């Protein structure tokens, strides 16, 4: 019978709380980027998901993602529906030194923030009712299966050896690709000052980025599922990659546009945090500098391409989370080393070129599945409830049209 370790339990519970804070942080990050007539609706997306997915995760999300496998490595069964059998005793499969409920709560916070990330793509024009139905469907049909594939010991991608320490594919790639599909489906915003809207409150966005950075220590270092050396390594690599990507993005914008962008510092930090997520517990601090540099360049380039493209991924979710998540997953296949984490695998530079191929397979599968099922969900919901608000509502702003409230008094 596994025994509970007090230090591990404290760290996992604390990490769950840190990751919880990321979703309100994301609300501020996104809220600052939209026009002032849509700030409440944008914040509401993240805050409502905090409530919504907390409930669905307890009822059926956790058992689908982490419950005993149904046989093919595709999805968990219903043995743990409404957390039946998930108790204060450790699981004999997951995080065996902490209460099973603590592991469940930690994973719940990941399930919450993932669909919230997508909301940046359809900001300023999505009908709230359609958003609610989308969030329930997406977290059930996309997030839960992918989490099972990658993180359950019985998951088929786990069995193939795909490495994803804290969610580069499960969280960021899946949501980033879904965001691109959602942006294509819903269409461009109307009334924008070309090529993109002005963020209405950059300090709000920077505050949100700061909260995300803080919470990410729980996201990544907490994914060690214990108070140990792997957690410490993940903590350091997380901070280093975020820092490197932030200063890289600022430098690029300085050279490209002539000014060191404050917004660029915030976006760059988040891109670095995204990219180190799958790698944090498998790579060295030196590698995290290279990962931060690389993702800063990749995501800055993707954001510039988005400005020229006709797709209106309003808040660059694909450029940061899709590109950053894929970049991080592939970088894991390059830089991973068992010298950092004996429970991991070696990557290309440690003599295992096959790991990079495995990571590429994981990226392709997760991206394709997320794209296909997201499109299906949007198509079905759009039949029952139009995804997009009416033109007058969009012009008035969603705060007023959808929520009957305004953020700032005239």
């Amino acid at each position, binding site marked *: 019978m596994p025994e509970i370790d007090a230090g591990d339990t404290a760290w996992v519970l604390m990490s769950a709380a840190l990751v919880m804070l990321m979703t309100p942080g994301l609300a501020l990050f996104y809220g600052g980027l939209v*026009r*002032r*007539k*849509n700030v409440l609706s944008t914040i509401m997306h993240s805050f409502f998901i905090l409530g919504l997915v907390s*409930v*669905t995760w307890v*009822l059926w999300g956790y058992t689908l993602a982490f419950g005993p496998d149904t046989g093919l490595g595709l999805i968990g069964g219903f043995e743990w*529906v*409404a957390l*039946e059998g998930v108790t204060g005793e450790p699981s004999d499969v997951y995080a065996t030194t902490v209460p099973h409920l603590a592991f469940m709560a930690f994973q719940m916070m990941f399930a919450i923030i993932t669909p919230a990330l997508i909301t940046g793509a359809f900001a300023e024009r999505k*009908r*709230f*009712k359609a958003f*609610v*139905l989308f969030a*329930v469907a997406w977290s059930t049909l996309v997030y839960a299966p992918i989490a099972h594939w990658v993180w359950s010991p019985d998951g088929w991608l786990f069995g193939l050896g795909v490495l994803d320490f804290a969610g580069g594919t499960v969280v960021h790639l899946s949501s980033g690709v879904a965001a691109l599909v959602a942006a294509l489906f819903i269409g461009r915003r109307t*009334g924008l000052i070309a090529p993109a809207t002005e963020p209405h409150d950059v300090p709000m966005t920077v505050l949100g980025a700061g909260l995300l950075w803080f919470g990410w220590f729980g996201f990544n270092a907490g994914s060690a599922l214990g108070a140990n050396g792997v957690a410490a390594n993940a903590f350091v690599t997380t901070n280093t990659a975020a820092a490197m990507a932030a200063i890289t993005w600022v430098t690029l914008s300085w050279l490209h546009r002539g000014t060191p962008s404050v917004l660029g510092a915030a976006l760059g930090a988040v891109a670095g945090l995204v990219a180190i997520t799958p790698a944090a517990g498998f790579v060295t601090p030196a590698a995290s500098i290279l990962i931060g540099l690389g993702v800063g360049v990749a995501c800055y380039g993707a954001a510039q391409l988005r400005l020229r493209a006709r797709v209106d991924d309003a808040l660059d979710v694909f450029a940061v989370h899709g590109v950053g998540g894929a970049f991080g997953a592939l970088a894991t296949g390059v830089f991973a080393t068992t010298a950092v984490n004996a429970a991991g695998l070696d990557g290309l530079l440690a003599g295992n070129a096959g790991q990079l191929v495995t990571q590429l397979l994981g990226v392709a599968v997760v991206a394709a599945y997320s794209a296909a099922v997201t499109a299906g969900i949007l198509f079905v919901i759009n039949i*029952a*409830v139009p995804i997009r*608000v*009416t033109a*007058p*509502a969009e012009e*008035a*702003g969603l705060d*007023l*049209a*959808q*929520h*009957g409230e*305004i953020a700032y008094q*005239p």
Partner: protein
Amino acid sequence: MVIAALICFGALVVAWIVAPDEARTTEHTTNALEPELAPIG
């Protein structure tokens, strides 16, 4: 208890589906406030 919890959540989903949508709110609220908000955005 599990069944009761699922039914309660299902009731919320039904409520979301039948709840008023933007049209009523837009008509009601925008008419009152739009003059002041028109320059925004």
